[in-house]
């Protein structure tokens, strides 16, 4: 695990949860389970995040890829964290990895759909999400327009021909299966005493179902009715979510205080020349292929326009009369001939 700090962009905290969006809870859960050092930045809308989608992860030069869907964005954050921070699945045996793959795809295909449906398609769920996410933060026309446009986007992405009751029934079945698996294994986390990435994914959905008023009652009742799930969540919260996350502003203040009084930015500093360094020649910026094409095309266009103007000036006869010039030249030759004839006549006589 390297030392630089990540910044996680997420929806603000709400309802006692680390974030009001299940995908952001998933991303934060993975970072906490991995023990990474990170700071959080709450964004009022998803457009305020550097990638246009929440959750997003920034670490030095890296930014998580832009995805159209919030769960895909969380997947991107988890993939990066697995590769560059800590791989929580490293300790799993081969059989457990197979189970991990199976459960992960189950969560993604069933629980993701049910969560999106309850947040964005159910009237009561959508109203609660709208109030929590946008209600008192955006001025009036935007507080209706933006959720409405987001709802249209999410609805377009949901798999077609999925009935709500079927989706919720599938999700309830998955919750039952998870509860049974947890009960039979009896361990602290899904795959034993150490957490895995599946625990992060589950934390997002289960915490949301248990507490949020936007969760469909059928899902909330299912979670509450399974005491093993509630204990699992309590354990997770107690062990890993006890300390609040550092906000980014606090991190920057600490960095500034630590960095101290290095060269005042506003009052001027010594230039390189004053310090005895020779000025390096300005680096040549190579024009990209598109710029070269643009330049070539604009040169051709200008040459063509110039040629058209020159042709008009020369050939239209308004400024330079070629016919007159030719006539003058011909007449000049005739005069010479006449002059010679006269001389000859004169000579004859």
């Amino acid at each position, binding site marked *: 695990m390297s030392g630089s700090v990540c910044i996680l962009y997420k929806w603000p905290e709400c309802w006692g949860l680390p974030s009001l969006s299940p995908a952001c809870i998933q991303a934060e859960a993975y970072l906490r389970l991995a023990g990474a050092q990170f700071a959080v930045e709450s964004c*009022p809308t998803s457009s305020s995040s550097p990638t246009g989608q929440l959750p997003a992860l920034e670490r030095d030069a890296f930014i998580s890829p832009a995805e159209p869907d919030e769960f895909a964005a969380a997947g991107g954050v988890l993939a990066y964290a697995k590769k560059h921070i800590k791989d929580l699945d490293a300790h799993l045996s081969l059989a457990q990895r197979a189970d991990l793959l199976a459960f992960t795809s189950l969560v993604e295909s069933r629980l993701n759909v049910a969560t999106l449906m309850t947040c964005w398609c159910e009237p009561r769920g959508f109203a609660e999400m709208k109030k929590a996410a946008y209600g008192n933060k955006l001025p009036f026309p935007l507080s209706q327009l933006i959720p409405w446009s987001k709802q249209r986007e999410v609805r377009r992405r949901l798999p077609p021909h999925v009935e709500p009751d079927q989706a919720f029934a599938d999700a309830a079945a998955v919750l039952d299966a998870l509860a049974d698996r947890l009960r039979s294994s009896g361990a602290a986390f899904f795959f034993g005493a150490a957490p895995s990435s599946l625990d992060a994914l589950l934390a997002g959905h289960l915490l949301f179902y248990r507490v949020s008023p936007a969760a469909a009652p059928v899902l909330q009742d299912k979670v509450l009715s399974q005491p093993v799930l509630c204990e699992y969540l309590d354990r997770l919260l107690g062990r890993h979510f006890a300390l609040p996350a550092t906000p980014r502003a606090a991190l920057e203040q600490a960095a500034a205080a630590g960095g101290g009084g290095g060269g005042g930015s506003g009052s001027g500093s010594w230039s390189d020349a004053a310090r005895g360094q020779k000025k390096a020649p300005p680096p040549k910026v190579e024009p990209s292929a598109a710029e070269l094409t643009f330049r070539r095309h604009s040169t051709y266009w200008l040459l063509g326009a110039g040629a058209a103007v020159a042709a008009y000036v020369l050939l239209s006869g308004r400024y330079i009369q070629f016919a007159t010039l030719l006539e003058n030249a011909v007449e000049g030759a005739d005069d010479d001939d006449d002059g010679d004839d006269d001389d000859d006549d004169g000579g004859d006589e």
Partner: protein
Amino acid sequence: MTSSETEPAPASAASASTAAADASGSGAGAAASAAATPGAGGAPGVVDYEALYEQIKDKPCHVVQINQRKDGFNGGTFRTRASLIERELDPIYKAETLAEVHEEMEAAGKRLRQLGVFTGVSMLAHEEPLDDPAACTVELAVEESNWFKLRAATYVQGGESTFELGAGLTNASGRAEALTANLEYGMENSHTASLAFKQPRVGGLPATLEVRGSQLFRNNQKSSSYTEQLRGAVLALKSMDGSQGLEYELGWRRLLDPSRSASRAVMGQMGDYLLSALRYTALLDRRQPAAGGAAATLGGAGWAVRSTTEVAGLLPPSGAGGVGGAGGPSSELRYVRQQVDAVANVPMEETGAVVFSVGASAGLLLPWGPDGVLARPTCIADRFFLGGPSSLRGFKYKGVGPTDVRRPPEGRAATSDSAAPRRDALGGDAYTSIFASLMFQLPHPALKLLRLHGHAFVNGGNVIQLAGAGRSPAELLSEFGSSWRWSCGAGLVLPTPFGRFEANYCVLLSSQEHDRVKRGLQLGFAASSVA
């Protein structure tokens, strides 16, 4: 007697002498008739119409009838409603002397032309009915323009080539209204679509009402690494001659960065904003385009000033507190923005072939809000940018002003400097630019016909960031004065409908670190900042 379109025609002025002779009978005295005899002011047989007019212009004279001849476009039906024309002609009936009749006729002709639906308006007053010397009749002839217009144009704006297509329905229902739809598409994927409805003389007031809805997508990736999407509507009230206008704009602005390579300063600007702004524009134009000469390409000899004042964030009143945590941008744009542009053209000799032109522009953008005036940075889409052939020659488009380093692409070591890191242009809150040039016509007649001119210029300007900089006003002022940029040069100018096309050779006199300069030959369109 008098035609309000051109200088008085001699034929109609001949009847003036007859009317004057009659008018003298109605109580003006013998002096008028003596003055009305030919030869009073010049060679025998030639009547001095101007002196005649000066003498009789205060005589009582009223208009008894206005005969209207209305022609539709190309012989088609005449669409404009009669009440519209009658309303403009009403004041003519109230005139009581000859001079007043003349003034009212000119004013009515101007008002009819300002409706924008007629291609030709001409009025002629003559002495019918002959039995009443103090009465006259006015003949009005109007011809309508076509009800359908289609327009296509290409131009270069802001470093991007744009293609524009517009269609309009003018005066379809006879009330002089205009409905236009516009579509613009740029090479960098910027596009704008707008629909506008315009009603001149709304409610009988001397004002034009305009309602416009538009969706705009501007791609600023190359210069500042962000894209802007603005969807909104504008409600505008403008004076009939277009010199003053009051607008209210309500829109949803979304700033995004699809390239994910924006600098930190630009990254903090991304998000959704509500733009609710009231804008007042006033133009004072004292230039005479009819004077001709080199000054004609600059709009005429004289001077002009334009001022734009914009206040944003007044409506709707928000009860919401600050958002996004400390230091983050609020979702409602709140600022006061003032911009003044002035230009003066002075011909240097009688023929007007050489003209000395001085132009100055200045702008200030100040955010306001509950945290204090300069606490938060302004939105990058509202700031002023300087650079390019229009504002500061010798520098690339948006090449002057505060910048910030972009995020280096992934996979590249931080210390590698094979290419200098690209920077984002951030723009500034206060700017000034000054332009002085000596423009002259080129001697060859072919070039004169093309209206190609040459010019030598000096251009200077500066733009700094005020809000969110964390520095005191005294420091900012000293920085503004000390980091001024100057350039000079000479080149060729060709006036086009979109502005002056300039080909300049520029020499930089003073520039700052991180400015993107364009040495040598620079081509581009310089749109006039005034009108």
